[in-house]
């Protein structure tokens, strides 16, 4: 038993091995140890959603996961998902709708929106609001964010 733990995990497709302090949460690990600054530290107790990242394909609160617990896990951040082009349309719609104001919540909003559209390709506005309810935008730009997600859902469905 130790306050330092060795972990090997995959971050955005790259294998990473580090020794981490046991109390280090995933977002500090990503930002401070790996230099991936896209995942934001907000409230650090699971309320705001700014730290939303994916572990093994599902979204989680990065601040409520210990890096030490992630040996063997597959982590994806906004950097990886952006580089893969997976949410290009969502990002374009956020720009077009001015859905990113200060931008602090944006990475978490995008990953949460992508998660919604994956499980529910035709969400109503109420369902979009419900799924994004755990992500705070302190600029209060919710209307534009919901618009952007709705626009992308419609465009994806038109293509499908």
């Amino acid at each position, binding site marked *: 038993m130790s306050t330092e733990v060795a972990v090997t995990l995959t971050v955005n497709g790259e294998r990473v091995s580090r020794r981490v302090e*046991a*109390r280090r949460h995933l977002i500090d690990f990503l930002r401070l140890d790996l230099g991936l600054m896209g995942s934001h530290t907000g409230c650090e107790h*699971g309320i705001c959603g700014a730290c939303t990242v994916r572990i093994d394909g599902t*979204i*989680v*609160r990065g*601040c*409520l996961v210990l890096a030490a617990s992630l040996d063997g896990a597959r982590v994806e951040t906004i950097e990886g998902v952006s580089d893969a082009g997976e949410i290009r349309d969502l990002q374009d719609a956020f720009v077009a709708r001015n859905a990113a104001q200060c931008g602090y919540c944006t990475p978490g909003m995008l990953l949460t929106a992508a998660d919604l559209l994956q499980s529910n390709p035709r969400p109503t506005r109420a369902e979009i*609001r419900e799924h994004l309810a755990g992500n705070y935008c302190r600029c209060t730009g919710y209307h534009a964010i919901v618009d952007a997600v709705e626009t992308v859902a419609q465009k994806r469905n038109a293509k499908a």
Partner: protein
Amino acid sequence: MKAAPFSYVRAASLADAFRLWSDAGPEAKLLAGGQSLLAALAFRLSEPSALIDISRVPELAGITQAGAAIRVGAGVTHAELGRHELVRRHVPLLADAVPLIAHAAIRNRGTVGGSLAFADPAAELPACCVALDAVVIARSAEAERRIPAARFFTGLYATALASQELIAAVEFPVARGGERSVILELARRSGDYAMAGVAARAKVSGSALADPRLIFFAVGDRPVAAQRAAAAVSGKQVTAETVVAAQAALDGELDPPADQHGSPQMKRHLARVLLGRALNRIAGIEEARAA
């Protein structure tokens, strides 16, 4: 804030977990999904010497049918609980409760056992367990105990678990024919803990209720069984009159504490409203007549 320093170790099996826990001593805590624990550590409300990670213990995983019960491993996440076919078919109250629990990102990580062991009086699953007459399977290094949910929650964030005892699973009786259930809550924002909530279950024939169970949450230090309200509607048709009688009975038996959401009077009002809605929903009557 950042958590105070602690040691970390991951258990590979239940036996391993008990051995590590015993070695680490009483200042150590178990880490399952971490969705309440890690927030508490960030606030330094708790400063354990060590965390023993039980999230990969195979004996705590999975949902299975065991005779007339559905056995849910303590390590099952809320998300897994809500989408599992056995749960949706045989314990629909649980499937209905899951969307009310926090947010998707938290449901992907938080566990059934963690929620019950944490025993937040405003949480949905403890109330569901009591409403469903679930049995909590507690394990220590030496023995297994079966604790009825109604006796499991002993106070504010307090349970019947002994020192160095953990929740291994929860067994939910399969819903019988004619049985209906509903969970309703009022929260300021979707995903917040409830200001008041109710998990209700009854056998329904026509619109008459038999053996109703009305378990309120966020109105006491633990899930609160509204026995007088249940007695007021037991064996009766759900009508405007029986709803009013049940609401009056409820008023006499709830003693909610004031909290950040409001006064005892407000909580009593919310509980009355929820009771009316729940009875009508269970009886298959739409909202119009609800208080």
